[in-house]
């Protein structure tokens, strides 16, 4: 009878435990469907190609399911547990994305963009920027800057960890982070004045 009426999971903790202990397919399905969009969003910050992003999303889930027993979240608060799991999942997705970029040798071409003086204009970002705009801004950054920006500002890596992952000096990580921020600001200001082309690039470039 147990094959007829399989239990449906109501919480992430139950599903994760089922995956870790019993390698349960239903648990995997629950987690996959719930966090597919989140993992995809993380990967799209690193990888522009949607097809590659889908492949890397699946790869991220495979790694997550394989190491489900290693995740140790605080079970006292469901919200905190979920938040820590999202962070754990995001790190897996980021690592896989970086491995993918490294394999394609994108990160070898470290750009040497000279620092530019930007006009100091007050920006009220929250009223104007949407997610699609932010992603466009990110996609206009050089790859190494985008990666370091994502890792430091969003995933919460330290410069030491970034240096270790990307096999670069810490000082380089700091420099590129600063440049990424400056470039983002410039790109944002430009976007207000300059419309984007069909591919999401600024027409002036």
């Amino acid at each position, binding site marked *: 009878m147990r094959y007829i009426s399989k239990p449906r999971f109501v919480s992430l903790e139950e599903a994760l435990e089922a995956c870790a202990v019993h390698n349960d*397919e239903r648990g995997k399905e629950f987690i996959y469907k719930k966090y597919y969009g989140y993992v995809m*969003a993380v990967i799209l910050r690193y990888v522009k190609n949607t097809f590659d992003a889908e492949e890397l999303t*699946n790869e991220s889930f495979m790694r997550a399911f394989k190491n489900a027993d290693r995740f140790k979240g605080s079970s006292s608060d469901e919200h905190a547990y979920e938040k820590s799991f999202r962070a754990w999942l995001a790190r897996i997705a980021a690592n896989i994305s970086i491995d993918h970029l490294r394999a394609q040798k994108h990160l070898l071409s470290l750009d040497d963009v000279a620092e530019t003086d930007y006009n*100091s*204009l007050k*920006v009220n970002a929250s009223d104007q920027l949407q997610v699609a705009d932010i992603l466009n801004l990110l996609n206009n950054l050089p790859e190494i800057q985008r990666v370091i920006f994502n890792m430091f500002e969003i995933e919460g890596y330290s410069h030491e960890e970034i240096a270790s992952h990307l096999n670069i000096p810490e000082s380089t990580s700091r420099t590129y982070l600063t440049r990424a921020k400056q470039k983002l600001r410039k790109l944002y200001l430009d976007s207000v004045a300059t419309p984007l082309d069909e591919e999401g690039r600024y027409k002036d470039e």
Partner: protein
Amino acid sequence: MKKEDTRMNDNKQDDKELISYIAEVLKEYSTSYKEGAWEKFASVNVPVRKRILWPYLSGAAMLLLAGSLFWLRSPEVNKQVVSRKIPITQEIKTETATETPASTTKILISRGKQEQIVRPKYLRISIATALSSVLPATPKVNLAVQNSVADVATHSSQRDIFQEDRFLKLLQRDQGKASSQESEKSFENTSTLALNRQKKWDYSIALAPATTRDRFNFGGGLEVAYRLNDRISVGTGISVAGLGVQRSDRQIYSPRVSASSPQASLATGLTAANKLAAADEKLEDKQLESVRTSVLGLDIPLNFKYAINKYFYASAGASIFAVVNETRTNVYAKQVTSTENFSSINGASAVKPIIETVSVSEKTAEQPLRNSNFNGFINFSVGHRIPLSGKFQLGLEPFIKLPIGRAAKQDVNLSYGGIKLSAGF
């Protein structure tokens, strides 16, 4: 310088606002779920556990075969009980009286119309059980036993009486042992029933070779039973049964009675097709000899089963018989007249008529069973259960099915019986 410092601080503040906003938005952002993504992922990365049934089915078939062979080859089981009908109400015979298991002692105990021949291995228990129910263990026992012996003596020789005296002495000694064995068996049965109490549902696969009066048939199906208590269970299922029956001319048509009269129809139970065939017979000079009917149907029973003990049970119930296919063939004896020329020695020729009888088969389109509203059978069976493990058991169940409804009103006898071999779990 102060102006430049202020400008730099403003830039940092602006950067912080923009960057923190971007980070905040991106941390919470997620795309929508793409339909079919999980199915694609699961098809590649999650192994699908298909329930492969053929090893279980082949295993069940092998066990069924092995169990049947074991049953047929086991000398103890074959020689345990042999029964035949006799009109004598009660009789005890002893041919020899030795205690050795290798002796040829036979004890015949009859209850009602049944007589059982029991081999020595089961002698003590059977006799003790049989007589203890008749003769209570009081001083009157001796008298009753003596009366029984005297009664037996009228049918036995002096030697037999002497042997029976010895036997009865042994019997009295063994009554104690037998009662303790009985209590052990009772405890065993009780404990087994108690263990089975947790299991409410029984499932089994059955093969049922059966025969009507005319033809051997084969069937089989699935059964499920629910235990109402330790002894009684109610079961149902579905099985395929093929029936082939035939009715001869005397049962179908009598030439002394006019086929067109209603009395003839009632007397002979002819169907409409048979009446037509009999009417045609007058015109074409042919006689309906037999009707062959083949029926393939699904039998859905509702049986009540009573567990006599751990190993034996009796079952009774009724079943609905859904006819899937029915074919009828009328077989006629037709007289064909021909002529033959003879020529004599002197050259004269003569014509002599010759009458030959040939058999002609004709299929009819009539399907009385298939077109009827209700066909069914009453089922009776007794069974022997052979437990092989805690969950698996084999069953050997002789059965008989008697038609009811439209099936009972046919001009052919659809009663059939056989032995059902089942593998239960």
